[in-house]
């Protein structure tokens, strides 16, 4: 089997896009007594198992084509 590598793509809501889920989490944390929590934002981590040598451009293309909806989301790629 050809060599593989793991790429992490983190998808988060853009700043300014209301995140009701995050807001509910922040409120719940405050309810648990964590007074210092001002806000929480919820994102997704997508772990890709791809052929070693797959280019960053290809991963970016995957992210724009499917993994993130760039109307409302940003993405960050971490490669080995």
């Amino acid at each position: 089997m050809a060599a593989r590598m793991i790429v992490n793509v983190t998808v988060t809501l853009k700043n300014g896009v209301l995140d009701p889920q995050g807001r509910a989490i922040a409120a719940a944390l405050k309810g648990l007594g964590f007074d210092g929590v001002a806000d929480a934002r919820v994102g997704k981590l997508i772990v890709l198992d791809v052929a070693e040598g797959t280019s960053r451009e290809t991963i970016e293309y995957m992210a724009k084509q499917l993994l993130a909806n760039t109307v409302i989301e940003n993405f960050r790629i971490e490669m080995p």
Partner: protein
Amino acid sequence: MKSAVIVFPGSNCDRDLADAIAKVTGHAPAMIWHRETMLPANLDFIGVPGGFSYGDYLRSGAMAARSPVMQAVIKAAGEGRAVLGICNGFQVLTEAGLLPGALMRNAGLNFVCRQVRLDVANSQSVFTSLYAMGETITIPVAHHDGNYTADAATLDRLEGEGRVAFRYAEPVNGSARDIAGILSEDGNVLGMMPHPERLIEAEQGGTDGRRLFEAAMLALA
């Protein structure tokens, strides 16, 4: 009117939509499975139904928008054929790039399932010509991700070009500018969260959805 309804794994309003089309137009639509790469020739009308296509994996409508049949739907829309996306169908059309913006989790986080009042904001499209401008109609919604979002420039453009078809006349899901349904630039694609196919006959509790299909039939038959 020659029509088709697209069926994804997880669609659950496809039969309601097919029924509504058949009852109003007298012709049953072709049911097209998501793996098809071609649509029947000379279609006038394509319905993208509600439901939870692909289990809402990744984002509502995201997987369905990239399924094989959607390439054919995008092509048909480009040819000017009428495309109606309802609920999950609206989410699919935004994810496919046929309509701008995105539908996010409802601002209140709750699944909202009830009749809502809508204001008709465009009465000149293929789908809305039998409604009066400013008329208030009642149509049910049933969704978790109906909170319409787009940047301010897109919202201004939609409003300026008369492309907001329906607005919520009451608080429902936090949608930007109370948008419940929008039209494409050419007006042949409509996406809406409320379910007009559920109010076709008096036995369903009202008939406010019926005129949408009658308008399409008048324009396209």
